[in-house]
């Protein structure tokens, strides 16, 4: 409606600028909406180039007051498209945040490693309401799912406080990545590192707060984050059948959280080989992100000095858990996730 009013007046001026804008919306707006909803007050003025999209909102209101210079007109056009796309799904979306504690940001990058899949997730299923560098929100907001990256440094009061705040304000708290779940590489910290030599006590987040679900490995897999996000969406917004599926899918990851916060390649010995469950399939060796596992005569052998304690080998092992109710429907579930991402 807005462009209908403003467009005709400025048509000749808009045209040259509008062309690049016309090609852009196909890719860009998909990514942006969530970021914008998170921004409470975009202050900067839309004097810049039209491709600075986050400024779309103030530009729109301005344009109504005084139909003005070319660049802002182009922005008006874009703005309308963005809002229309966003308005419908927003009500049904879940909100996801990422709390960044003592980690390397690899987990956060992993979310982005879903590439166009991330756009789809953010368009239809989840609003990203809190995340380092990606969302301009300073304080931990209310959210459905909070992914916590990194272990918690006990010497850093803010970490402890924010972690507790995240627990309070989220429905589901996820230990996202090996540091949050198991301590991972931060288990080896002895303090003395630049620029906080006093920081030496790092614990998996479950030492400080209750954790609902684990996504282990270092880094975690983008596909696993995607699956968990889709399943969390189904759990919170789906019909009964979808809720049942999501519950079945998420159960083992929740059980992992109950199992404890110590992980190591040794788990393969303690909980698989020693328990008489290993059949030598090779999954653990193929999974290990640091190649600490080799297969010696049909059984895994862990180079324990090389192991970073990320928990990937054990949780990927088909004999750590194997839930037939989910696995027997692998074809349907994979198709469903694929369909959800199209």
């Amino acid at each position: 409606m807005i462009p209908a009013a403003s467009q005709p007046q400025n048509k000749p001026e808009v045209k040259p600028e509008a062309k690049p804008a016309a090609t852009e919306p196909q890719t860009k707006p998909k990514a942006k909406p969530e970021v914008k909803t998170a921004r409470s007050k975009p202050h900067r003025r839309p004097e810049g180039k039209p491709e600075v999209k986050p400024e779309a909102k103030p530009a729109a209101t301005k344009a109504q007051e005084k139909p003005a210079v070319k660049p802002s007109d182009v922005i008006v056009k874009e703005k309308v498209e963005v809002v229309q796309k966003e308005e419908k799904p927003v009500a049904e979306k879940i909100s996801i945040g990422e709390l960044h504690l003592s980690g390397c940001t690899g987990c956060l990058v992993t979310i982005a490693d879903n590439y166009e899949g991330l756009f789809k997730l953010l368009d239809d299923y989840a609003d990203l309401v809190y995340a380092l560098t990606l969302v301009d929100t300073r304080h931990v907001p209310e959210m459905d799912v909070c992914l916590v990256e990194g272990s918690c440094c006990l010497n850093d009061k803010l970490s402890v406080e924010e972690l507790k705040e995240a627990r309070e304000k989220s429905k589901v708290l996820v230990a996202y990545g090996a540091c949050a779940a198991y301590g991972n590489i931060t288990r080896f910290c002895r303090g003395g590192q630049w620029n906080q030599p006093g920081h030496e006590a790092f614990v998996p987040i479950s030492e400080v707060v209750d954790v609902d679900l684990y996504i282990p490995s270092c880094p975690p897999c983008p596909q696993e984050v995607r699956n968990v996000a889709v399943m969390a969406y189904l759990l919170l917004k789906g019909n009964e059948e979808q809720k049942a599926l999501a519950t079945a899918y998420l159960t083992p990851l929740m059980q992992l959280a109950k199992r404890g916060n110590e992980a190591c390649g040794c788990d393969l010995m303690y909980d698989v080989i020693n328990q008489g469950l290993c059949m030598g399939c090779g999954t653990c060796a193929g999974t290990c992100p640091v190649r600490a596992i080799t297969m010696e005569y049909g059984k895994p052998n862990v180079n324990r000095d090389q192991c970073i304690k990320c928990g990937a080998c054990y949780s990927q092992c088909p004999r750590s858990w194997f839930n037939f109710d989910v696995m027997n429907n692998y074809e349907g579930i994979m198709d469903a996730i694929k369909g959800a991402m199209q």
Partner: protein
Amino acid sequence: MDVLGNYKSVISARSTDKDITKKSQDGGIITTLFAYALEEGIIDGAIVAGPSNEPWRPEPMVATTKAELLAAAGTRYTISPNLYLIKEATRSYGLDRVGIVGVPCQIQAVRKAQLYPIGMRDVDDKIALALGIYCMENLSYQALEAIVEDHCNQKMESVKKMDIGKGKFTVYTERGAVSQMPLKLIHKYVQPGCNVCLDYVANLADISSGSVGSPDGWSTVFVRSMKGNAVWDGAMAAGLFETKPIDQVKPGLDLVKKLATEKITKNQKTVDARKTIGLKADGTPKGLRNPYESP
């Protein structure tokens, strides 16, 4: 789910490729399907049980040619940790479409890696064809050595073929000797991990194949998934297999079903027995870890 899993069709089949049937264990189904899939670009490479520097010890390898597939053809009665290469195949080998063959537990591992890709980055959509082989139980390499060298009294390096059938483990040597031992003597050598396995005919594979149920030199083939169906139809249309309806061959599907039921019943008992194997202070039973309940 039935003991035979979900399947779209089951048929008795044999490869029409003489190069393959010369080297294959039975009907040459797996080798032929992979060769076809490579040729058609359905897969870029297949993770198979290749040769190693020890006789009859398989080593996982990525085969990208028919010659490499042929080098890996035939059954070795010990585990080849094929999943070891599943991520590597998409990395250093740069494959976008991976084929993989495995025994039932390995196909389970493939599906878990796809549904729960915890440490399997960028793998889930690259599994283009997962072929399963029937498996009753498996042996460590040292156990196989004990069976061949102690029980059958043959040297590993002189063995031409090993086979299991009709209740016997049979060893054929290069010089024509044949040694046999009753299959039930093997049980003490079986990997303990195999005793909790609840899958006989690779229920989660795209296509699974094995000798049981079909005449000598033929295999019983279950076509299970959409993907598997497309590949099977293509291979059939290309004339790569001769087939017989499963209800017209001896011993037929009933034997497959009988063995599957036997295995699953026996192993379910083991799984259940593990729950009450020990004793708590209060006199109630203490159990071992059950992978089918929780991690």
